[in-house]
């Protein structure tokens, strides 16, 4: 029998250290997790609110929208409408986890296992994070972004900077490359690169050139359409990138602001791709670790019960007709699937051999899970590994909402005929390409009035919310400097709706 790691609910730095080391033995030793070095920071409730406002980042550039989020969270917290998170974890190397000073020691144990090992392992190994983010450089880049934006505010005024940032924020959803580029962005060199570009511009600037006589104007030639499209990389789904590179009227500091917002959008993109997996992994890890600690007598029954209370709260899934329903809980679904996969590895039944053929009965659940954590995102994970048992446990069903029909149709339920359709239906709902509207820059009228033409590829007849779309278009027009036209186009190429916006004078 091992000695208890702690026996009262108050935490201290030495207990946290001891618990962390013990968890490390289990997580890295027995479960085979690979993590970035951990940095655990104890913060107060007020600091947690600050962190919320800055989307969890320790450093963030100033903007009114962060103040708005702060005001909202503060209000909710003060009114007691919502508690604060127990932790926030940042995809960086070293991996920073914030833990609240108000947590009991049992909670700190849960939080460390969950964030400092579960999320940490996922950040380090999942391919979306590896492809899209640069955890070693992110903090430096945030410092650079904050300083750069502050210097822009000094030089050009807060209002001018805010205008550009507002516009860029409106396009954050259209600021990611959904397939990774060959070269990973190395955020550390960003600042050096910017300085280099400026030096170069200064070096090649020569007042004398201005006085050179101009030659006779070359006869106007219609630009070669295919060449132009190739040069402009059209069609382009990353609207922010397109504007940063091609907007004719933007001064270079504004392009840099767009770049900052775009890189931040890209940094957060994997978190949207892997909500279920990320939380499922972390929940699975804390559950496994805490159970092992308890089995070995390292935490008391009381602490374990406290943990179970929090754990069951976290993985609660209200039914669709309950007042608490707010969509599928990623913690619940992710955890249930991970546990189910573990079961299928160890004690598969006939069904598992049909539905989960590659892992059923493999006998090495941790190996299988590590492989899955590294190589899937929500959409593909659900499509491949949502088993009939989980569908039955959640009593999932498909509901078709067709505006043309007077009633809703139950398409599939958790039975033999429905498993496949539920699986693919749920996977589709995690496909961001399907969930977000598909916007792309389609063309630029270079020979005419420089109008920018943007397409929305309408799926299933869902048009954009018009009022907000027009506000976003106004932002695009501000950046582009000329008229912008948004066409909502269906699969056959028919234009369903058109919005025209001119830049503000």
């Amino acid at each position, binding site marked *: 029998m091992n000695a208890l790691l702690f026996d009262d609910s108050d935490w201290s730095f030495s207990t946290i250290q001891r618990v962390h080391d013990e968890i490390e033995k289990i997580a890295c030793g027995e479960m085979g997790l690979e993590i970035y070095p951990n940095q655990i*920071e104890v913060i107060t409730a*007020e600091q947690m609110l600050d962190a919320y406002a800055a989307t969890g980042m320790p450093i963030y550039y*100033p903007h009114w929208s962060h103040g708005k989020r702060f005001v909202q969270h503060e209000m909710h917290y003060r009114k007691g409408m919502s508690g604060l998170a127990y932790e926030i974890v940042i995809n960086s190397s070293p991996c920073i986890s914030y833990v609240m000073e108000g947590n009991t020691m049992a909670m700190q144990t849960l939080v460390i296992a969950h964030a400092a090992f579960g999320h940490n392992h996922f950040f380090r190994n999942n391919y979306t994070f590896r492809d899209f983010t640069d955890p070693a450089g992110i903090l430096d880049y945030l410092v650079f972004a904050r300083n750069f934006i502050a210097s822009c505010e000094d030089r050009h005024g807060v209002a001018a900077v805010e205008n550009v940032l507002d516009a860029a924020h409106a396009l954050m959803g259209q600021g990611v490359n959904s397939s990774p580029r060959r070269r990973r962005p190395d955020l550390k060199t960003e600042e050096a690169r910017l300085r280099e570009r400026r030096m170069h511009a200064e070096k090649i600037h020569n007042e004398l050139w201005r006085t050179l006589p101009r030659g006779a104007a070359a006869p106007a030639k219609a630009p070669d359409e295919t060449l132009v499209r190739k040069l402009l990389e059209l069609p382009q789904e990353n609207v922010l990138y397109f504007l940063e590179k091609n907007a004719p009227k933007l001064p270079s500091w504004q392009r840099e602001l767009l770049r900052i917002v775009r890189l931040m959008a890209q940094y957060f993109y994997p978190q949207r791709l892997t909500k279920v997996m990320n939380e499922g992994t972390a929940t699975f890890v804390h559950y496994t670790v805490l159970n092992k600690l308890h089995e070995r007598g390292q935490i008391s029954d009381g602490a374990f019960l406290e943990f179970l209370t929090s754990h069951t709260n976290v993985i609660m899934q209200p039914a*669709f007709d309950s007042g608490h329903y707010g*969509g*599928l809980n990623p913690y619940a679904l992710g955890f249930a699937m991970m546990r189910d996969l573990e079961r299928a590895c160890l004690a598969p039944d006939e069904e598992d051999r049909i539905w989960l053929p590659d892992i059923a009965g493999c006998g090495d659940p941790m190996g299988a899970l590590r492989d899955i954590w590294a190589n899937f995102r929500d959409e593909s994970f659900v499509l491949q590994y949502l088993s009939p048992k989980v569908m039955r446990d959640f009593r999932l069903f498909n*509901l078709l*909402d067709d505006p043309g029909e007077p009633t809703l*149709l139950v398409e599939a339920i958790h039975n033999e005929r429905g498993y496949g359709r539920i699986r693919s239906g749920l996977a589709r*709902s995690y496909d961001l390409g399907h969930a977000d509207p598909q916007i792309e820059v389609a063309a630029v009228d270079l020979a005419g009035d420089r109008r920018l033409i943007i397409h929305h590829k309408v799926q299933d007849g869902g048009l954009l919310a018009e009022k907000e779309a027009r506000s976003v278009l106004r932002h695009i027009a501000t950046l582009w400097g000329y008229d912008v036209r948004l066409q909502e186009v269906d699969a056959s190429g028919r234009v369903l709706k058109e919005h025209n916006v001119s830049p503000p004078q």
Partner: protein
Amino acid sequence: MQLIDKRLNPAGKSLPNRQRFLRRARSIVRKAVRDASVERGIRELDGGGIVVVPASGIEEPHFHRGQAGRAQHVLPGNKEFLEGDRLPRSTGGASAGGSLAGQGEGEDQFSIVLSASEFLDFFLEDLELPRLERRKLAAMKADGVRRAGYSSTGSPANLAVLRTMRNALARRTALNRPRSSEIIELEAALDAAQARGDEQACAAMRLQLEGLRTRTRAIPYIDPIDIRFRRFEVNPRPVAQAVMFCLMDVSGSMTEHMKDIAKRFFMLLYVFLNRRYEQVEVVFIRHTDEAKEVDEETFFHSRETGGTRVSTALAEMARIAAERYPLDSWNIYAAQASDGDNERGDNMQAISLLRDEILPICQYFAYIEVAEPDHEASMSPLWKIYENLGDDQPAMRRVSTRQEIFPVFRDLFRADAEASS
């Protein structure tokens, strides 16, 4: 693992962003504050607190689908449905579907906690005191000394070393004064040459050295023209101060309700004056058929009986103003609250006092006629005679419920009130 205690780091990291947000939301917050203030008492006005603003003016737009079109949802918790069932849209299933489709449209309004001073700022924004003049006050508030650049004369205690050295350096550089290191180097070279016995080089170097030394002597390290002193100026700032006369009829016809309204108005005026002037004094004058200066407690709470002679209060005010508040250093404001009654024989006297003595010395004279909530608005004697003053008439409003106090107050002190009053 690294374990860091961040709890002692400075808090309030989000405050600048919060300020930016408030600035952004200025107009809608201001409107919300106005709406909220209608329901508040004056004491609460000082307390800040929660205001609810609609999220419409401060949204962050992004592209999203309006109506979802043909959509498929996967939902948990099936209890009774079978494949192929058709559900009416109004059931739980439909509302669940609806809430899914409506994602991103959630926040309709949200609340902001304002501090007391923020709340007052918003409330009093764009209000202006009419005929605000910064009349000079006696020297008692004259502020001390203030930095006023540099001068070339002064006491040694005020020597500005940095500035002096900067000037000296500039002058030495401009006149090309040799550096001591140059001389030392040359001397060393000379010694070396002497040791070698190179007489020709020695002579050249001696000549050069002599030149350098002459220059050094001619161009001093610090010249009197370099010297600067910190200059200070006595800076008497004219401090505006105001006195506020509260006149109230306390005769039997004034009910508690009326007094309560009057009190609210007086307090509002006090809060407002207090923000505009460094010093505000308040004089309470109550009257029945005779007037008396009293303290605040008595003013609002004691009951008197008797007739109503407004002129007595006006005379008392004129007397106190002449005695204690000379016009050249005081801004005089007056607010009168009454139910409008006056003894018939007193009207002429009141009006001549007002026209000839009170209005000329006042920056602003506001007359609030208070009434019972269900009282029908009719011309009261006092209202009629004040109105007869024509262009000179004081700012007059009639108030019968608490809710009207704030709008009436705002109305009286609108930034452009000057023109109309």
